[in-house]
């Protein structure tokens, strides 16, 4: 006599996300939200008014400081993430684009998401999702480069200023760095909306333990993913 809410299913645990990756992920979530909101406020600041600067709350200064602090935290956690990638065999930064099956599998998953195929082969590391994370890292890199190129130009002659100053030269002008920084921020938010949906969808539609794995590091699956052998 089986209780309806209890299923007797044999499941396997696949450990794929190291603490470095998981902590980075959640710091990144928080920091992207902080950076996005403060960034919009820096471009179009709130007008606190008042009588003179000495008697106001330094709101713009505060918003900028929060933005810079969040940026430094994000960069620090990204460095930790890369360190974790180096010491953990299981962590991946970029998809294995040099393996031919990556492309055919990406197409297969994309066809399923376009509702043209009823299902796709199950993966521990969904190739289409992995491709989008690689894109996210590129967007983050653009934000970091243009961000520091603007931040450090308070003193272009400083050694850090020289390390990032070339970015402004590369994109043409410093104003262009502002534009790119702002536009790419919107792309990151669009990615976040899509990513949030796809993860929840994978959890409910495809029986992947996608959401909980970013907390526990494990995927607990009843089916056998196609890339299970890549864990060895």
């Amino acid at each position: 006599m089986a209780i309806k809410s209890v299923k007797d299913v044999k499941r396997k645990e696949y450990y794929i996300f190291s603490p470095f990756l998981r902590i980075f992920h959640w710091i990144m979530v928080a920091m992207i939200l902080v950076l996005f909101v403060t960034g919009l406020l820096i471009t179009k600041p709130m007008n606190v008014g008042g009588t003179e600067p000495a008697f106001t709350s330094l709101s713009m200064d505060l918003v900028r400081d929060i933005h810079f602090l969040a940026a430094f935290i994000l960069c620090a956690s990204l460095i930790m993430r890369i360190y974790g990638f180096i010491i953990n065999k299981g962590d991946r930064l970029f998809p294995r684009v040099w393996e031919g099956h990556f492309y055919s599998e990406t197409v297969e998953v994309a066809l399923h998401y376009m509702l043209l195929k009823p299902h796709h082969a199950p993966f521990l590391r969904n190739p289409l999702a992995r491709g989008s994370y690689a894109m996210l890292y590129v967007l983050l890199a653009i934000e970091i480069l243009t961000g520091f190129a603007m931040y450090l130009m308070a003193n272009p002659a400083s050694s850090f200023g020289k390390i990032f100053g070339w970015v402004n030269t590369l994109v043409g002008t410093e104003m262009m760095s502002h534009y790119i920084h702002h536009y790419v921020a919107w792309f990151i938010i669009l990615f976040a909306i899509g990513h949030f949906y796809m993860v929840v969808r994978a959890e409910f539609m495809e029986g992947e333990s996608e959401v909980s794995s970013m907390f526990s590091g494990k995927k607990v699956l009843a089916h056998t993913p196609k890339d299970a052998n890549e864990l060895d």
Partner: protein
Amino acid sequence: MEKRESLWEAYLRRGFSRRSFLKGCVALTSLMGLSTDMFSKVVEAAETKPLPVVIWIHGHECTGCDESFIRSGAPLASDVVLSSIALEYDHLLSAACGAPFEAHLDETIAKYNGQYILAVEGAVATKASGVYCMSGGHTFTHLLEKAAKGAAAIIAYGSCSAYGGIQAAKPNPTGSAGIERFVGGKPVVKVPGCPPIPEVMTGVVMHVALFGSLPPVDSDGRPKQFYGNRIHDTCYRRPFFDAGMFAETFDDAGAKAGWCLYKLGCRGPETYNSCGNLRWWQGMSYPIQSGAPCIGCSNAKFWDEDPFTARLPQYGKLGDVDKIGAALGVLTAAGVAGHAVASVIQRNQRENLIDEDHHE
């Protein structure tokens, strides 16, 4: 070669006292952005260095830089032109004209080969073999290449000669470009601005004149002492920015009270110039002080970064990227919601099929 007089000898000839000479040197030292420790070196150079020969040519431009230059207050432009440099050739300030004037240019180039300073105002018109800018019967490109060959140093005055100027704005029909690629690798010090601050113009030419070398420059070739800081970081309205006190329109209470012009598109945060500390007309004012947001006139390509009165580019009825981004965000959210519904329907259909298979 005849002996050319030094600044001190020029003062003596005109009957000025030693005291006024030293006072002039003090003014020069501070104008060149040098520390007072350098004062004795400035005096030494002014006593011994012969006045430098300067050839000043004008290309694809409006001569607004000269309008700025002749308003230099300390030193007076007349003092620079008549007693601090030996200005041999200048399209705008010379009384002479015609064939003898052009012949004098050739004589000067030959006589002071490798010694003269070449000051260039205006861009190079590169399209159609350069016919959009003619000078003395030749293209300006020809004149520039000829004059640059024997120059000891080249000063690019104004945003035109440094970066191409407003006539290089899209679609740039004349192919206007900065002079750097047309001077055969000679060192160029850029003094951008539309126009540059008068005292910056005289300060740079006096630095070259007295020390015989270009002033220390940044990675873009601009003198560090004048272009080392953003206007934003030297602006007297910066406290209003930090506090969050902004003028929202050109005629609101904030604008009248002199609050920060950031929300009216001020380019101070991206612009390197001395407007904030040196200001214009002997420190009287500068655009931000008079209530006009900085347009970044000393930046390369500032002419394409419109509108000057907003922080972000506008796309007609679509608005700026914040409006478009928010709309795309809503569309994406609606899209994923639709996708979720479609996914559920697809799964139910599939399960129904499986169920039917099961019953058979």
